[in-house]
């Protein structure tokens, strides 16, 4: 599903752009509007896939920006079920949506029920930051039963054995964390990411790879799109929403639109190395 979408975009000679925003921040309705804004409005290009984050009380994979938004969203009453409304809102724009969620929330909802409701809402799959294939038996079954992508994370520290196992457990694409760290913007792109993507491609030349953590702007997105199939951006999209919220204008999405435009232009400005082999086909 989402993997095929990445392949189509690669065939167009560019990398795909994945944009993360949490549901419920600054509140549920505005978060849905923000996600629609991510997908591009009118003729403006937007992201190719929306990653909908579900706020969690103990998000160990997330840095200060996403934590802050998540804490506020929980204080303002966001519920797990709001994820499905967000998925529906994104799916209605024609851009696919996946959900990023910590495992206890899925387990609590019921893995099969969650998969069913995600599928019914029009969702394409799940990213699980604290669930690896080792503990994922229930999720394998539920995602198979409902035909959902399952996107596990790999890391520069993953051993070859684990990398092989995780890549073969993924469906759709593989989420490569570009550095040893948590989410958040960085001033430079990671030097570890290209080698990690190469290791994945060596294991499985067909694997679609998204690279996340630390990408802040269009220029960095362009750099990453040179070697990966997709560029994942989160905190950089959230920052303008936090700024607007702090300024008492939570509904102001203009800052977000500016960042989206810059990132979308970034992935369109380079020459994707990945596409070069396909350019004659």
């Amino acid at each position, binding site marked *: 599903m989402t993997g095929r979408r990445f392949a189509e975009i690669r065939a167009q000679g560019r990398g795909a752009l994945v944009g993360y925003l949490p549901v419920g921040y600054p509140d549920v309705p505005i978060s849905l509007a923000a996600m629609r804004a991510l997908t591009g409005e009118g003729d403006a290009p937007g992201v190719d896939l929306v990653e909908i984050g579900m706020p*969690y*009380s*103990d*998000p*160990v*994979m*997330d*840095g*200060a920006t996403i*934590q802050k938004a998540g*804490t506020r969203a*929980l204080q303002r009453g966001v*519920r*797990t079920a709001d994820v499905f409304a967000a998925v529906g809102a994104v799916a209605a724009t024609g851009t696919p949506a996946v959900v990023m969620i910590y*495992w*206890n*929330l899925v*387990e*609590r*909802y019921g893995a099969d029920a969650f998969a069913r409701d995600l599928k019914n809402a029009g969702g394409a799959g799940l990213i699980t*930051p*604290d*669930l*690896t294939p*080792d*503990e994922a038996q229930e999720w394998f079954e539920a995602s198979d039963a409902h035909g959902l992508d399952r996107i*596990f*994370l*790999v*890391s*520069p*520290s*993953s*051993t070859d054995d*684990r990398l092989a196992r*995780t890549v073969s457990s993924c469906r759709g694409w593989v989420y490569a*964390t570009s550095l*040893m*760290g*948590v989410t958040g913007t960085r001033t430079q792109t990671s030097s570890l990411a290209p080698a990690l993507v190469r290791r994945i491609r060596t294991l499985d030349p067909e694997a679609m790879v998204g690279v996340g953590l630390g990408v802040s702007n269009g220029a960095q997105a362009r750099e990453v799109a040179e070697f990966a199939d997709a560029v994942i951006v989160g905190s950089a999209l959230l920052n303008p929403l936090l700024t607007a919220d702090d300024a008492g204008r939570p509904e102001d999405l203009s800052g977000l639109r500016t960042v989206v435009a810059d990132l979308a232009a970034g992935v369109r400005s380079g020459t994707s190395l990945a596409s070069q082999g396909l350019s004659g086909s």
Partner: protein
Amino acid sequence: MPAVSLPDATGHFDRFGGKFVPEALYAALQQLEEAFVAANADPAFKTELDELLADYTGRPSPVTEARRFSEHAGGATILLKREDLNHTGSHKINNVLGQALLTRRMGKTRVIAETGAGQHGVATATAAALFGLECRVYMGKVDTERQALNVARMRLLGAEVIAVDSGTQTLKDAMNDAMRDWVASVDNTHYLIGSVAGPHPFPMIVREFQRVISTEARAQVLARYGRLPDAVAACVGGGSNALGIFADFIPDTEVGLYGFEAGGEGVDTGRHAATISAGEVGVLHGMRTFVLQNADGQTSESHSISAGLDYPGVGPEHAWLAKTGRASYEPITDSEAMDAFRLLTETEGIMPAIESAHAVAGALKLGRRLTEQGVEKPLILVNLSGRGDKDVDTAIEWFHVDTHGDSSTGAAQ
């Protein structure tokens, strides 16, 4: 150390435990497990650890018969395993020294730790000073305020103390921040977890380093009384002191094992940290265990007068011991714990940590109950896991102790 039967090879105690962590940490958990297994098989490691425990910590810790205190326990005899007499003032140092040796074996130069009451943080800062390791301790902002003395101790020992202001600003958030640090620093840093909690292999490693408590106590009780105790009691937050004193007694099925959780203002008020008594199975901090959580699975805020027990999860082996019925867990309220704190102080001249006072209060109840059930002169072994110096400010406030006047007793009810 005895053979380790559980957890299984993948770190599970039946359905509990496991490794629910970001992939980035898997390699480090693997490395730690390998280092632990290798160290366990290396006589030189055991010799070095035993020497440290004897010459630095002051082990073995004695067992004290609390005669005057026992008069309040319905005919039971209360024995105190004196972990409060260890260097740094609690059982935490046992595990810290073991993990510090592992840190050195892994060639790492920096340790990080989470702490609630500050006892584990102080122990970690102490070992870091002893081994020349860089040290950073994460502590909830709320806890840095109620345990200011321990913050000062850690800083004097050369550790950096980070006051964590995210989430509920207590132990669980300190643990989140320590894990975030570790994801980014795993190359040179060991995360020195202080409880039998977190992802595998931590629950197993910490239990094995705390096992010395029950190995000593079992032999001490047998030597003095010619029999095993009827019951063993400990307080349970994450549960390291409890597993330490339970471990060698687990095969002795005639010995009752009792864990006392923080009942806070009462389990029915919702303001407590009684995870096994009132929580539900879930995933938190890398383990499947009992978790205080809401209908969506968001972790609930826990409450306890004792910072060290103020944690909404519990070690997975305790979850398993509770599920199998091998151990029983009950809540003790703030007020019951503080009454026991005062009673032990006044009858024995031993001021327990408020954490340990939960076990002392539990033993009082247990003594009365066992006697009512017809057990003759029950012998109850309590793990006095730490001393109360750090809690004097809390006690001053709770008991309205007069610190300025010239009252001869220094206390006012």
